[in-house]
């Protein structure tokens, strides 16, 4: 059986009280817990996505020595609410020649693909909706729905810019999936399992216990993953699908109002998810740096805060890169993926396998400090 949130909570006393409250109806109680947790996560992630737009504008302003949004609320922090209200009230325009069915479906597919990944995102070792035994594989698989959404958004608009953007987006996403997945596979090799619980339990809270410093190959794998993840989420310098200087705004040129908002929200949440996965796989996730009892709820909440902090720091780096590097050309994009990242990722995978055999699964720190 897979570990789930309900099976985790059932070890506490208050679960029995809740069960009594539900007159012993375990199915209904499980449904309620999942529902509440799912609503909480979706709300949290929508907020993070909204704050992402604000952070993007504010950080870009900092990097370009401007001020950025500063009118709505203190330091302009309510700008995202103003943007949201603006998007809600905008007219929903559909091009006359658009493919109606696919035009409506495309933003939904993007949003579904991103929100479905939240089911396995490990907020802490216990607060994870479903710790599937194929966790990371599920996450990689279901997030490829975003590629279909991007492609269909480009096709359904019936516009040349959208079409080019959608084609670029789909080819980029399925190409960069390969180095990303192989880098993740190297970490799966180190942890000996695909579930996030296993991966987290094989790391510690301190940097020398993280998988990124486990061996030289996993150190390189972290950077391969980061570059590939930037490309998979269509972020600069890989934002060719929505390159505003050549394609207006690519696959969502023809989208207005909240449909455009769905694409934008999906992108910002996907960046957060990708950063969270990087934090969980390479940077120790929610593990606490001090040895404490981990199976009590306050520790879990502190762990969740640590996880979110790590993910948001990576989020900052993503935005930082966007406003620092120029955009690649299409041929450069493909040569980066197929000529450099994929061979390096395969080399890392083989290297990690050899390391695990030769050094019996010990990390560099173990070897240097002589831990057993």
């Amino acid at each position, binding site marked *: 059986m*897979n570990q789930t949130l309900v099976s985790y909570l059932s070890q506490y006393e208050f679960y029995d009280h809740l069960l009594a409250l539900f007159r012993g109806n375990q*199915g209904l109680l*499980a*449904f309620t817990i999942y529902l509440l947790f799912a609503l909480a996560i979706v709300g949290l992630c929508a907020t993070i996505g909204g704050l992402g737009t604000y952070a993007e504008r504010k950080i870009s302003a900092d990097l370009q020595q401007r001020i950025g949004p500063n009118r709505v609320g203190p330091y302009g922090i309510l700008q995202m609410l103003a943007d949201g209200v603006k998007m809600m009230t905008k007219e929903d325009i559909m091009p006359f020649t658009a*493919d109606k*069915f*696919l035009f409506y*479906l495309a933003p939904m597919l993007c949003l579904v693909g991103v929100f479905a990944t939240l089911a396995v995102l490990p907020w802490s070792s216990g607060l994870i909706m479903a710790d*599937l*035994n*194929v966790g990371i*594989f*599920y996450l*990689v*698989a*279901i997030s*490829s*729905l975003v*590629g*279909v959404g991007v*492609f*269909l958004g480009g*096709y359904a608009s019936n516009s040349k810019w959208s*079409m080019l953007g959608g*084609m670029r987006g*789909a*080819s980029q996403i*399925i190409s960069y*999936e390969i180095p990303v997945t192989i880098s993740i596979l190297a970490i799966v090799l180190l942890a000996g399992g695909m579930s996030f619980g296993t991966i987290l339990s094989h790391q510690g809270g301190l940097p020398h216990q993280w998988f990124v410093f486990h061996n030289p190959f996993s150190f390189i794998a972290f950077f391969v993953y980061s570059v590939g993840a930037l490309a998979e989420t269509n972020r600069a310098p890989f934002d060719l699908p929505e390159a505003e200087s050549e394609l207006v705004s690519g696959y969502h040129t023809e989208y207005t109002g909240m449909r455009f908002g769905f694409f934008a929200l999906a992108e910002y949440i996907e960046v957060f998810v990708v950063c969270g996965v990087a934090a969980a796989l390479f940077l120790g996730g929610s593990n606490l740096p001090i040895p404490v009892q981990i199976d009590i709820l306050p520790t879990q909440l502190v762990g969740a805060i640590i996880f979110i902090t790590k993910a948001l720091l990576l989020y900052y780096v993503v935005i930082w890169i966007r406003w620092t590097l120029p955009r690649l050309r299409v041929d450069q994009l493909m040569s980066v993926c197929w000529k450099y990242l994929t061979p390096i990722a395969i080399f890392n995978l083989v290297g990690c396998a050899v390391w695990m055999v030769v050094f019996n699964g010990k990390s560099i720190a173990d070897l240097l400090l002589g831990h057993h």
Partner: protein
Amino acid sequence: MFINFLFLSSALLTVGCAIAVLVTKNIMHSCIFLLGSLLGVAGLYATLGADFVATAQIMVYVGGIVILMLFAVMLTGGKDFVSKAQNLLGLAPSMGNKWTYAIGILVSIVFMLTNIKIISAVIKTVEHKKTGTEFPSTVNQISLILFMTGLIVMIARKNIVAILLGIELILNAAALNFVAYSKYSTNNLDGHIFSLFIIVIAAAEAAVGLAIVIRFFQIKETIHIDEATQLRN
């Protein structure tokens, strides 16, 4: 309760989308309905306890095959290409006509009767071996509908990409049966391994098939199957 709900919704998604693949005129929409059907099959795998196969199904089909199909449709002229073939039912040119549909339905009924004969024989042996195990008749029926729909799509529709969609449906029907037998009859992972092989073969087949389709379009400027009567151009 959840698992029943998941099973029911997955089954409805699978069957409904498979039938939609058959009757939709627009090949682009057919591809999207195929996506829905394949996601439904992934849901069925999950309810049958085959997590890894379900995830591999989503990974390979959603991330690979469907996007390949969409690319192929766009590179071969999309929904607007004109064919010399007549349409009798007022359908899109590549949709086939009433004769192809009649032949398709007839062939699939013959196959269905043969299948039911085989399945009933298997049921007898299984019930002999394992008393008290629930036989997956519902999964069998879903798989049978998938198989029949795929066969009708292959025979009736005249668009080569649509024929490839039919092949995907048939392969999925086979893989679904393997997983179901693995759960209800043998209780080991043999069926899962076979399903994984089928998924990988489907991916390879789609890549090769779509490459041929695109080359064919470059030579003949149509992807109507009736134009493909010669082995050389």
